[in-house]
């Protein structure tokens, strides 16, 4: 059995922004009778391609469609439980660090060989930076974080069936193909994985395998 390693990807994030005003801008008076503007509360969501299957990505890796389909299916539990969090910039860890969380994945599904996602930017310190970047039109990169092994096939590496998706993070946009060649990360032990996937996640994963098994 190959060692499981932290696998990060990096691709240009192609997306559309949708802004919903939750509370409009209001004008009120403070204790001294001065007029005060209370800015509108907005919910910024983005819809875009999170990952492409069967395509050579910027890291020289290919994620087979069947692997991504399965991982998107398993990720639904995280979405339903409002745990589908991501960070701004890549950490060298399999655990999502709440201090750096910037967004929440609301929807993820496969469409024409790509993973499409609807992402809500959170009102956290990292989320505010992300929102500012988005509103300024800064080009972003999107990066999946997961654990698994790869096998070399010619000039590229194919991600194997043992891959488990952890989350999608936002990173700087890779301007040059290959410029963001992130090597395979450190070896992930079973103990590390148990911090990411709790018992019901693991049960859900097996249940999905059983219920999608075609006789």
């Amino acid at each position: 059995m190959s060692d499981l390693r932290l696998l990060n990807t990096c691709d240009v994030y192609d997306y559309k922004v949708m802004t919903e005003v939750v509370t409009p801008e209001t004008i009120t008076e403070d204790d001294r009778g001065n007029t005060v503007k209370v800015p509108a509360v907005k919910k910024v969501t983005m819809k875009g391609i999170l990952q492409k299957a069967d395509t050579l990505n910027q890291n020289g890796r290919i994620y087979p469609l069947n692997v991504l389909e399965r991982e998107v299916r398993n990720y639904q539990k995280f979405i339903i439980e409002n745990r589908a969090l991501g960070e701004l910039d890549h950490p060298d860890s399999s655990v999502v660090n709440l201090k750096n969380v910037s967004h929440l994945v609301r929807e993820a599904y496969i469409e024409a060989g790509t993973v499409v996602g609807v992402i809500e930017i959170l009102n956290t310190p990292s989320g505010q930076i992300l929102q500012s970047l988005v509103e300024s039109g800064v080009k972003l990169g999107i990066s999946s974080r997961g654990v698994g092994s790869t096998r070399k096939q010619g000039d590229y590496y194919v991600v194997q069936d043992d891959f488990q998706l952890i989350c999608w993070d936002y990173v700087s946009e890779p301007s040059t193909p290959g410029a963001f060649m992130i090597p395979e990360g450190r070896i992930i032990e079973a103990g590390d994985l148990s911090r990411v996937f709790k018992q019901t996640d693991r049960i859900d994963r097996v249940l999905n395998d059983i219920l999608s098994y075609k006789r």
Partner: protein
Amino acid sequence: MSNAHQKKRNTGLLYEFLVRTISKALVEDDTKKSNAALKILRKYFKPGTELYKEFRLINALIKTTVSSGTVAASIMAEAKAAARRHDEKVLDREKSLLIKSINHVLNDENFYDQQVNDYRMYATIQTLINDWRSPDKDFERMAKYEDNVTTWLITEKIEPKDQTISEESPGTSRLLMKVMMKKLNEKYSGMLSNDQRGLIKAYAFASANDDESVIKKKLIDVKSKLICAIDEFKLGNPGNDYINNKLVETRERLVQESLDVVDDDTVTRFMLYIKLGSELETGDENV
């Protein structure tokens, strides 16, 4: 007087040793060795060679079963005549070249120590054939061996497919099974649990022995244990609808599992059931 039996010069055994070497090399993915042994087999046991003629004669005496002593006696007479028609000098030279090739090309010190079923009968037949040809025969031994082979010819042979392979089986069957299990354990160590490996092992033995009783017992056991584990988990986690709904569906599938046919698909599904059972029993703190 003729010399005693030499397994290195027994045509039937040399053929069996080569066949076993090819099988073992194939299982161990040693293409180089299997090709080399196959090349030797094809070269020296080519139709028309004296070795091939002697092999055919030995093979016929080993494999044939006849209904009466009279028929067996007439076969023995035919076999004796056929053995005497062989060109002994050419046969001896071919045999020496074959042994030289085996020693030099295969260079396997255990080659002549491989276990062959009916080894004693191979030895008896080769010694008898040598005696038939020899001008200085051991008549007492020849008479005894002719009687042994005649009795063998009228004895019902046990077909290999009826032999039960188990971890205690002798010879190549056990070797093949051991090699397969070792490769399986190496490849999937850490990925498969002991229960999953046990299921595969039971399936492999069931296929080899054409007896599904052990594997079916295991599958029934997995099924009943998992049904209990699902029910217990649901009782302990009543609020988790997302998982519980899927567990209900899985339980229904499990109940409907018919074990009339046990094939690759059945074993694959039950491997998943075993994994589910293991996850249901393992709490977060025990990972």
